[in-house]
């Protein structure tokens, strides 16, 4: 794709330390629309982020210019599509600082990545009374796959507790690492609380006992730089649609030696052997985990999204989002009868809260009338709700394009909730 050279060129520009939010907002077409007659205030980024125009353009130019299946034909377009698809893989490798593209497996989303590891890596190693260690603040996607593989083998899922602030109790986590622990699967950042976990320390503790580690970076990946070699994690999953990319494309990183030793997940192996003149290619990593025609446009869109993130720069994104989180915390705490759920010392971009006498669902409907989009409910983290003794929370979650004015609008909308329920 011709475009990719241009994109690469823009990446080498030195990221500015201060983020120009007006300029960024102009890159996201959807942010110009109104909802219920009010300007859209999109604060549901932890569910999915909006997409910059470069992502939409990259997808459109793939379909209008080079659409063809990958790794298939000798014709021009197939070659170009394959280059673009594999170029995206290299982009992802650099984004997460993996050693090799052989360690980057495309999935549909983070959930599929966790399931792949659960079925192909962990399940064959599980015996009765073995353990999978997770934390009390995991998303359902990092709970249920482990329950399923444990159920079939007589193994158990152990849960490391969180304290009242929503911080992982690291000493308890360490005690729960035993010779029976076959994997520790831990979130990098809680989608319900915003807590950032000390993943480097977690990996060190687990490895000291010979326990492999999977990190769920779904929430963390669009807020901070992640270096898989620096962390030394065995596996890491992320999802494209939270990284300002399209839905339906996700990433599994796995250390090459781990992936190499694992059987295929989706039964692609049988199919592969029938394409005899391509057999040697298909048998290699990472293709043995990529059965069937993949989401080519999704990979290409994700490439553009990662370029976009790095052009803005995590330094600028982090500084902007921290400033917004501080301001948003003040706003939320200034509303009568509102309590934040999740006050970890190290947290990012999530304001989860409850309001006395008002169910989160009612909060969500009323603020929506003001154009403010927030999430209400259990956030696919029911055990977290249980831990904090609430049936649900309202959650405002931030991204690089949000502004102080939008948080002011949230504050006004929440005062409106108080008026309705006065």
């Amino acid at each position: 794709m011709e475009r990719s050279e241009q994109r690469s060129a823009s990446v080498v520009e030195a990221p500015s330390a201060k983020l120009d939010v007006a300029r960024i907002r102009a890159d996201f077409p959807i942010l110009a629309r109104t909802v219920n007659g009010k300007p859209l205030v999109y604060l549901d980024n932890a569910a999915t982020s909006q997409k910059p125009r470069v992502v939409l353009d990259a997808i459109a130019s793939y379909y209008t210019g080079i659409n063809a299946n990958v790794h298939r034909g000798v014709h021009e377009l197939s070659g170009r599509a394959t280059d673009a698809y594999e170029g995206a893989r290299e982009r992802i490798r650099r984004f997460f600082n993996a050693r090799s593209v052989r360690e980057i497996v495309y999935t549909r989303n983070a959930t599929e990545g966790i399931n792949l590891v659960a079925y192909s890596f962990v399940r064959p190693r599980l015996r009765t009374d073995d353990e999978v260690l997770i934390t009390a603040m995991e998303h359902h996607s990092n709970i249920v796959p482990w329950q399923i593989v444990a159920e079939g083998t007589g193994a158990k899922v152990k849960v490391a507790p969180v304290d009242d602030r929503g911080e992982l109790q690291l000493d308890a986590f360490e005690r729960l690492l035993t010779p029976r622990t076959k994997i520790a699967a831990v979130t990098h950042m809680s989608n319900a609380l915003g807590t950032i976990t000390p993943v480097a320390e977690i990996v060190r503790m687990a490895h000291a006992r010979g326990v492999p580690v999977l990190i769920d970076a779904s929430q963390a990946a669009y807020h901070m730089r992640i270096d898989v070699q620096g962390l030394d994690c065995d596996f890491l999953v992320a999802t494209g649609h939270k990284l300002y990319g399209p839905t339906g494309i996700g990433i599994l990183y796995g250390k090459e030696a781990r992936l190499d030793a694992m059987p295929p997940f989706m039964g692609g192996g049988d199919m592969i052997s029938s394409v005899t003149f391509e057999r040697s290619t298909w048998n290699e990593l990472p293709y043995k985990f990529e059965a069937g025609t993949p989401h080519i446009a999704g990979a290409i869109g994700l490439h553009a999204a990662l370029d976009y993130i790095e052009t803005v720069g995590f330094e600028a994104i982090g500084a902007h989002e921290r400033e917004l989180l501080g301001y948003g915390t003040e706003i939320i705490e200034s509303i009568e009868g509102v309590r934040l759920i999740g006050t970890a010392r190290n947290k990012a971009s999530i304001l989860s809260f409850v309001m006395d006498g008002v169910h989160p669902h009612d909060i969500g409907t009323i603020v929506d009338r003001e154009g403010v989009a927030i999430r209400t409910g259990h956030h696919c983290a029911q055990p977290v709700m249980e831990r904090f003794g609430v049936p649900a929370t309202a959650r405002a979650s931030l991204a690089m394009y949000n502004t102080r004015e939008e948080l002011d609008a949230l504050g006004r909308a929440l005062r409106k909730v108080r008026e309705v329920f006065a």
Partner: protein
Amino acid sequence: MSDLSDLYQEVILDHNRRPRNFHALEGASHSAEGYNPLCGDRLTLYLKLNGDTIEEVSFEGAGCAISKASASMMTDALKGRSVGEASALFDRFHRMVTTPPSEPVEDLGKLSALAGVREFPVRVKCASLAWHTLRAALNRERRTSTE
């Protein structure tokens, strides 16, 4: 654009603040649990039948203002009715909350306060949870879900 006050009418807010018949029922002849997985609303409905007549009805649980008010108003509306009447009322209520906002609906007395949910399609399940739970209880199903 629909107005918030169509949804959060004073009578609904009142039932939310002070739900009627909000307790467990000793000696209940029928009960069922209702669950809306979307928002976590959960309620238990109790009925005491005398022959074919609903002599007593009550509920417990946690949920949003719409689901709580709807359950509260439903229990008020059911007392003294026959099972057949309750079942017919389910159908009439269900029709009311699922008819498009542009079309007229039957006047169901106090229950008509909930007709405002038609303007808020994602909230229809909140209003109908108690009624689905009623039907489950009468059919002797232990659990029901809006999904």
